[in-house]
């Protein structure tokens, strides 16, 4: 009977991982819709192809090699079996693989509307096989950073990946955007930022809601156990705090944009929701619900400032605001963890953030550079005018609707 109970615990934890993993997988749809809504219609089919393609690449490459790099498990290509210790190993893999895809999804939005599709896919192959898994091995994997130091020694704490997943994706995106340059027409001759409007805001909103829902799996699953009172309480608390932070992000971004710009800016509000979610991800387990709401609200304000700052001051063109949402707010999320969690230290968070950023930014930068030199990463001016849909995919996303 003892055994039956153990089996039940095993089954419940496995089931929990699978359900949470399915929710995280769903985030792939969220990123696709968000990005498809925020680009111009002439680049929509391409970004959809990019998103479904990168998800497939992430799932395959992480299976082939990345999982092994990150968790140093069994040998190459054979690391995944049904059996596990306290839950199925396959369920663990399933949950992990959707995280890689999430990190990679972040990149696609920032380089939208001008990057060559297959250059992006080539990047995705390396990112999901090596770049992400390596930094993942230093953090969740517990390995030391190139044998030099161990992040856990410094009190680095990143519950579900504000840094490991989100800031990492944003760092790769930043490196790419810097080498890629702004979209044609984004800045006029005086360097003034020209708005380029997203074509389909209901899609972008849908994407945000999907991400919000998927995030329950993202954070909730990161408790890594369900089948005991303690872990059940932890998962429940994480759900509540994740929701509260998203709500806080929405309210803060909405009000802040209303006061600053005079209107209730929908795209900023959507970014506020995501910022709230990113902000809480580093530590949804320790704050009270009220504090979680405030952390989310902090993210909501920061994201508005950051997007404007990147766009108008730094003149870094990020069509969907991915670098601000996932990078800047991801960092913020890491830095507020010590406020409510004694296991984390401020310096540990900083060192961790720096380590992740340095590694991902530099390695991605080199990779983008190599790709740029060999096959080129940017579509031609002519193709950009006509839209990446025609040049990369040979079709249009909304062929029947007359567009500007």
């Amino acid at each position, binding site marked *: 009977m003892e055994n039956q109970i153990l089996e039940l615990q095993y089954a419940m934890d496995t089931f929990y991982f699978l359900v949470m993993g399915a929710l995280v997988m769903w985030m792939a749809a969220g990123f696709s819709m968000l990005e498809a809504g925020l680009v111009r219609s002439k680049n929509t089919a391409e970004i959809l192809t990019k998103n479904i393609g990168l998800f497939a690449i992430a799932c395959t490459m992480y299976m082939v090699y990345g999982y092994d790099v990150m968790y140093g498990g069994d040998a190459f290509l054979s690391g995944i079996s049904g059996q596990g210790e306290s839950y199925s190993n396959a369920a663990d893999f399933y949950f992990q693989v959707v995280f890689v895809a999430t990190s990679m999804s972040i990149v696609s939005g920032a380089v939208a509307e001008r990057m060559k599709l297959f250059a992006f896919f080539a990047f995705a192959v390396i990112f999901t096989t090596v770049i992400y898994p390596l930094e993942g091995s230093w953090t969740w994997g517990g390995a030391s950073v190139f044998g030099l130091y161990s992040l856990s020694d410094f009190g680095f704490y990143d519950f579900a990946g504000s840094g490991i997943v989100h800031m990492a994706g944003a760092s790769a995106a930043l490196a790419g955007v810097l080498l890629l340059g702004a979209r044609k027409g984004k800045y006029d001759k005086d360097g003034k*930022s*020209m*708005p*380029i*409007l997203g074509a389909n805001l209901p899609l972008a909103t849908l994407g945000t809601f999907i991400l919000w829902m998927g995030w329950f799996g993202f954070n909730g699953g990161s408790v890594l156990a369900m089948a005991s009172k303690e872990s059940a309480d932890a998962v429940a608390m994480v759900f509540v705090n994740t929701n509260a932070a998203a709500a806080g992000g929405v309210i803060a971004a909405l009000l802040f*944009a209303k006061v*600053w*710009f*005079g*209107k209730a*800016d929908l*795209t*900023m509000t959507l970014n506020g929701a995501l910022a709230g979610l990113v902000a809480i991800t580093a530590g949804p387990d320790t704050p009270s619900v009220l504090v979680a709401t405030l952390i989310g609200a902090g993210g909501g304000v920061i994201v*508005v400032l950051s*997007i*404007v700052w990147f*766009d*108008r001051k730094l003149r870094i063109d990020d069509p969907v*605001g991915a670098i601000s949402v996932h990078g800047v707010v991801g960092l913020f999320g890491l830095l507020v963890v010590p406020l409510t969690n004694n296991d984390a230290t401020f310096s540990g968070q900083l060192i961790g953030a720096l380590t992740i950023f340095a590694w991902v930014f530099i390695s991605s930068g080199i990779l983008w550079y190599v790709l740029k030199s060999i096959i080129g990463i940017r579509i031609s001016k002519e193709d950009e005018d006509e839209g990446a849909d025609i040049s990369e995919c040979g079709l249009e996303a909304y062929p029947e609707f007359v567009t500007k």
Partner: protein
Amino acid sequence: MKMVTAIIQPKRLSDVREALSEIEVTGITATEVKGFGRQKGHTELYRGAEFVVEFLPKVKLEIAITDEQLEQVIETIIKACKINGGKIGDGKIFVSSLEQVIRIRTGETGPEAV
């Protein structure tokens, strides 16, 4: 025969159409256009950046008529457009001459075809 081309506010479309059918104008072709005139475009906002939408949505009506109808048609359009008093952006009317009109179905030509 004349071709009257009126650029009007989209919200006036049904008023104008009704007014014209009362004076027995039986054919109209309407096109969605973007207009740029004295009326300044409105300002929109995207991610905190303001920008001016210079071309405003207008409706272009093309109405082929006989020479005799001209005056009445123009007056009717003007009246229907100024229902709430004249405002900037109310639009313009252009008149040009038509050499020929043909009804495809019947092959009729000239004034009967209008």
